[in-house]
C-alpha cells in the first residue's frame, strides 16, 4: 500500500459516544452521513419492492396481481420514493461524510442544521409512507399533474399526503443545501483554492445551488395545489380561467434541475474513482468542472422538453429543443474526459471501478436516448411511453444508482473501517449490470411499439407480452444483485478485514486520515499542495518531484467538536405533527407549529453566548451566517419570483370580479410602502448602533423597526378585511387567489421578521446582546431588507402597473 511514505495518524483518542441517544443528538457529519445512507437504503428497498410488484403485474397481459388503483399508487410511490427518499439521500450520505474530509475541514458550517435536515427528511419519508397505513397512498404519478390532483378528481387523502411530504422533504433539502454551500465556500483551509477541490466537491457545490434555486418553484406549485385542495383557491381551476400548463411549468422548472441533482453526484464519484484506479489524474479536470457548472446552469433552460406534447406551440417547442441539445455537449465532454482518463492508465479492476465503468456505458445509452427525446417530432412518439421509461431508468439506475454503488464500494473502507469482499463485489456488479440491461433495454422496443407508461394492464393482442416478461425477469435479477451487495456489506461489517487509512492509494484528503476517521476528522489540518493534493504528497508531481513539506494549516479554532443537540429532532417532530394535523384537526397543526417554533427558539439560542461561536469568519472573509443568509435570500428570489410570475400570468384572466382596478387602494398602499422603506432605514441604524456597542440606540432602533413592521401588517390586515367585505376572497376569482397568496406570503415573511427583531430586542433588553453579536443583528437586517425589496417589486407590479 502507498501509505508507507507517510506517517498517518493512528488514533488512541477516546471512542465516540455510543447508544441510541448519541445518534439521535449527533451533529457529527460522519454520523449524519451514515444515518442518511442507512435510511436511503431502507427506502430504496421499499421502492424496489414496489417496482417488483409493478413488474409482476405487467409480466403478462390482462394480469391480476394487483388492481388498477393499487397499481397506480405503486408507480406513484415507486417514483417518489426512488427520487426523494433513495437517490437524493444516498447523495446526501456521501456529501455529508466526505465533503468536509475532502476539503480539509472538521465538519460542516452548521452542524446542528445538518442534523436538522436529516431528521426533517426522515419525518417527510415516514409521513409519505404513512399513507399506506391509512390505505391512501398517493396515486397520481410522481409528477402529479393538475387538475387530476385537485379535489374534484382526487377527493381522498392520497394527494394530501403527497404534497405535504414533498414540501417537508423540500425544506430538508434546502436547509442542507445552504449548509453545504457555506461549507464549501467558507471552510476551506488556506491552500485549498476552489480549483484545487476534488471534482466530487465541485459537483456537490453545483448540486446544492441547483437545490436552492430549483426547489422554490415547485414549492410554490405545491402551495397552490395545497391551497386549492384545502382552502378552495382557483390556481388549477379551469372554469375560473386557470391554465393547467402552470402546474407543469412550475413542476418541471424544478423537475429538470432535479435530474441533474440526481446525476451530478454520480458524475463526481466517477471522476474520483477512475483516476484512483487508473493511477493517473482525471483528464481535463478543469474542463470536467466547468462542464458540471454549465450543465447545472443550462439545466434551468430546458424544462419544457417534458411538455412537447402539451401544445405550447412551435416556437416554444423549438427553443426548448435547441436548449436541450446544447446541454448534451458538456455531458459528452465529461464522458470523453473519462475515457481519456482511462487511456494510458494502469487500470486496476476493483469493484468500484467496475461500477464506474458501467456508468459510462449505461449513461451513454441513456444520454443518447435523451438526445432522441430532445427532438419534438421524435419525442411525441416517445414521451409518455415505455421509451421514456427506458431512458429515465438508464440515466437514473445506469447513471445515478450505479455511480452511487461505485461510491459505496470505493468509500466503504473509509466509512466502516472494513473492506468489502472484492469477488462478491464484482459478482454484484455483473448481476446488477446485466439484469439492469435485460430489464430496461427491451423497454425501448416496447415504447417503439406504442406501449404507454402508467398502464396497469394491456391486451394480449398488442404483442407487448413477451418483452414485458423479459423485463420482469430482469427486474428480479436486479433485486438479486442488490441482495449480493447487502450480503457483502453485512459480512464485511461482521468479519471483514480491517481497512488501512489508504487502501486504494487515493488522491484526495479523505485517505489521509484513519479508516474510519476520528470524531475530529484530522489531528492537524493537512497542507494543500494542489489538486489531488494527497497524491502529490505521496508521489510528487507529473515528474515525480515531491513538494517541499508545508506545515499543517493553522487551526484557529483548535479541535472544537460541536456539542450534540436534541433540538433538531424536536423540530422535526413538530413539523411531522403539523403535517399530520393538516390531515386530521387544526388543533394538531397548531400544536405541531408551536413545538416547531419552540424548538427553533431553543435551537437558535442554544449556543448564543458560546465563545467558540462568536466569530465564524471563513475562507472568503465573510461570516458563515452571512454567507448562509445570502444563499437563503437567493432561494427567496426564486420563491417570490415564481409567486409574482403567477400573479402576472393570471392577470386579466379572472372570469368574474372584483378586478384589481376596482378594489386596490393605491394611496393607502403607497403609505404602507413608505412605512416599510423607512423601517429599513431604522434597521440599518440599529445595526450601526449594535456594531459600535451603543446598546440604548440599538434597542431603540430595533424596536422601532419592529413597530414599523407591525404598522405595515396593520395596513395589510385592514386591506384584507376590507377586500373580503367587498367580495374579494381567496375563492372568488383568480385575482383573489393570486393576490392573497402573494401578498399573504409576503406578510407572513414580515411577521416572521418582526418576531425575529423582537427576539433580538428582548435579548438586548436582558443584556444578552453585545457588539460581538452584531452579526446576528446584521443577518436579521439582511432578511428584513430583502422582505422590503420584495415589497417594492409587488407594489409596482400588483398595485401600480395597470
Amino acid at each position: 500500500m502507498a501509505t508507507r511514505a507517510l506517517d498517518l495518524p493512528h488514533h488512541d483518542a477516546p471512542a465516540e459516544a455510543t447508544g441510541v441517544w448519541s445518534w439521535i443528538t449527533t451533529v457529527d457529519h460522519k454520523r449524519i452521513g451514515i444515518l442518511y445512507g442507512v435510511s436511503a437504503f431502507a427506502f430504496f428497498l421499499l421502492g424496489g419492492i414496489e417496482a417488483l410488484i409493478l413488474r409482476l403485474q405487467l409480466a403478462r397481459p390482462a394480469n391480476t396481481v394487483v388492481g388498477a388503483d393499487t397499481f397506480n399508487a405503486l408507480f406513484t410511490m415507486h417514483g417518489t420514493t426512488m427520487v426523494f427518499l433513495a437517490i437524493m439521500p444516498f447523495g446526501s450520505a456521501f456529501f455529508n461524510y466526505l465533503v468536509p474530509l475532502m476539503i480539509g475541514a472538521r465538519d460542516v458550517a452548521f452542524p446542528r442544521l445538518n442534523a436538522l435536515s436529516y431528521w426533517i427528511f426522515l419525518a417527510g419519508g415516514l409521513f409519505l409512507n404513512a399513507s399506506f397505513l391509512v390505505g391512501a397512498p398517493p396515486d397520481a404519478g410522481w409528477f402529479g399533474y393538475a387538475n387530476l390532483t385537485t379535489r374534484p378528481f382526487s377527493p381522498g387523502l392520497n394527494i394530501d399526503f403527497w404534497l405535504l411530504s414533498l414540501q417537508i422533504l423540500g425544506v430538508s433539502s434546502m436547509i442542507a443545501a445552504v449548509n453545504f454551500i457555506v461549507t464549501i465556500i467558507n471552510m476551506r483551509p488556506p491552500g485549498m483554492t476552489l480549483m484545487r477541490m476534488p471534482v466530487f466537491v465541485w459537483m456537490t457545490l453545483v448540486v446544492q445551488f441547483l437545490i436552492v434555486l430549483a426547489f422554490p418553484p415547485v414549492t410554490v406549485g405545491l402551495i397552490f395545489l395545497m391551497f386549492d385542495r384545502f382552502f378552495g383557491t382557483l390556481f388549477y381551476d379551469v372554469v375560473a380561467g386557470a391554465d393547467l400548463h402552470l402546474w407543469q411549468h412550475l413542476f418541471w422548472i424544478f423537475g429538470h434541475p432535479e435530474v441533474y441533482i440526481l446525476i451530478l453526484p454520480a458524475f463526481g464519484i466517477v471522476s474520483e474513482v477512475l483516476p484512483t484506479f487508473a493511477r493517473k489524474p482525471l483528464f481535463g479536470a478543469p474542463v470536467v468542472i466547468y462542464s458540471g457548472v454549465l450543465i447545472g446552469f443550462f439545466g434551468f433552460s430546458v424544462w419544457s422538453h417534458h411538455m412537447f406534447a402539451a401544445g405550447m406551440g412551435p416556437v416554444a417547442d423549438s427553443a426548448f429543443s435547441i436548449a436541450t441539445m446544447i446541454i448534451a455537449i458538456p455531458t459528452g465532454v465529461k464522458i470523453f474526459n473519462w475515457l481519456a482518463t482511462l487511456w494510458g492508465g494502469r487500470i486496476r479492476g476493483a469493484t468500484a471501478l467496475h461500477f464506474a465503468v458501467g456508468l459510462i456505458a449505461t449513461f451513454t445509452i441513456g444520454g443518447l436516448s435523451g438526445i432522441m427525446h430532445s427532438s419534438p417530432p421524435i419525442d411525441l412518439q416517445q414521451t409518455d411511453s415505455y421509451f421514456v421509461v427506458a431512458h429515465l431508468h438508464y440515466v437514473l439506475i445506469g447513471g445515478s444508482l450505479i455511480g452511487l454503488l461505485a461510491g459505496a464500494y470505493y468509500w466503504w473502507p473509509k466509512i466502516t473501517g472494513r473492506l468489502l469482499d472484492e469477488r462478491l463485489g464484482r459478482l454484484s456488479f455483473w448481476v446488477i449490470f446485466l439484469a439492469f440491461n435485460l430489464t430496461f433495454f427491451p423497454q425501448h422496443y416496447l415504447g417503439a411499439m406504442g406501449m404507454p407508461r402508467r398502464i396497469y394492464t394491456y391486451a394480449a393482442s398488442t404483442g407487448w407480452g413477451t418483452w414485458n416478461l423479459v423485463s420482469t425477469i430482469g427486474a428480479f435479477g436486479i433485486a438479486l444483485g442488490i441482495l449480493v451487495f447487502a450480503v457483502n456489506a453485512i459480512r464485511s461489517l461482521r468479519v471483514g478485514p480491517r481497512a488501512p487509512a489508504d487502501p486504494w492509494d487515493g488522491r484526495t484528503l479523505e485517505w489521509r486520515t484513519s479508516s474510519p476517521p476520528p470524531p475530529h476528522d484530522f489531528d492537524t489540518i493537512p497542507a494543500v499542495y494542489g489538486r489531488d493534493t494527497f497524491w502529490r504528497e505521496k508521489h510528487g508531481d507529473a515528474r515525480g518531484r515531491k513538494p517541499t513539506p508545508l506545515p499543517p494549516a493553522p487551526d484557529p479554532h483548535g479541535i472544537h467538536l460541536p456539542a450534540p443537540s436534541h433540538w433538531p429532532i424536536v423540530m422535526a417532530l413538530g413539523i411531522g405533527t403539523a403535517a399530520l394535523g393538516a390531515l386530521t384537526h387544526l388543533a394538531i397543526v397548531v400544536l405541531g407549529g408551536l413545538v416547531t417554533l419552540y424548538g427553533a427558539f431553543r435551537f437558535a439560542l442554544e449556543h448564543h453566548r458560546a465563545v467558540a461561536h462568536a466569530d465564524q469568519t471563513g475562507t472568503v472573509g465573510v461570516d458563515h451566517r452571512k454567507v448562509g443568509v445570502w444563499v437563503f435570500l437567493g432561494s427567496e428570489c426564486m420563491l417570490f419570483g415564481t409567486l409574482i410570475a403567477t400573479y402576472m400570468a393570471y392577470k386579466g384572466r379572472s372570469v368574474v370580479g372584483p378586478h384589481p382596478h376596482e378594489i386596490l387602494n393605491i394611496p393607502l398602499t403607497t403609505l404602507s410602502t413608505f412605512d416599510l422603506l423607512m423601517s429599513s432605514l431604522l434597521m440599518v441604524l440599529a445595526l450601526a448602533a449594535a456594531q459600535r456597542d451603543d446598546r440604548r440606540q440599538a434597542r431603540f432602533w430595533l424596536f422601532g423597526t419592529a413597530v414599523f413592521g407591525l404598522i405595515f401588517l396593520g395596513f395589510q390586515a385592514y386591506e384584507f378585511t376590507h377586500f373580503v367585505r367587498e367580495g374579494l376572497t381567496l375563492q372568488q376569482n383568480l385575482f383573489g387567489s393570486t393576490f392573497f397568496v402573494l401578498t399573504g406570503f409576503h406578510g407572513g415573511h414580515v411577521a416572521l421578521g418582526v418576531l425575529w427583531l423582537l427576539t433580538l430586542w428582548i435579548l438586548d433588553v436582558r443584556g444578552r446582546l453585545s457588539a460581538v453579536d452584531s452579526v446576528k443583528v446584521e443577518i436579521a437586517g439582511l432578511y428584513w431588507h430583502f422582505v422590503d425589496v420584495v415589497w417594492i417589486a409587488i407594489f409596482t407590479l400588483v398595485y401600480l402597473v395597470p
Partner: protein
Amino acid sequence: MSATRPAPPDHADAAGARAHASVATYAKVAVILTLITAMEFSAIYIRQLTPILVPLLLVMSAAKFALVVLFFMHLRYDSRVVSFIFTGSLTLAIVIALALMTLTGQFLLFRR
C-alpha cells in the same frame, strides 16, 4: 459612521469589504427612496405619461430595489462572493419569471 466611539473590529469588513457606509449615506438613501416612491405614486395620475408608464415604473422600482440592496444590505461594500450569489439568483428568477409569463401568453415577445 458616527464618531462617538471607535468601531470594534468588524470581521465582516476585514477581508471582504471595500468601504463602509455612514449613517449620513443611509439617510440620503432613505430620502431618495421616499422621493422615488412619491414620483411613482404621482406618475400613475399623469395622463401624458401613460404610453411610457410601465417602463417608467419598472425603472423606478428597479432603482429603489438596487438602492436598498447596495446600501442597506451593504452589498456595495461586501465580498464579491455574496454579490455573485445574490445577483445570480435574482437574474435567474427574473428570467424564469419572464419565461413563465411568455409561455402562458401574458408577455408575448413574438407572435405565435
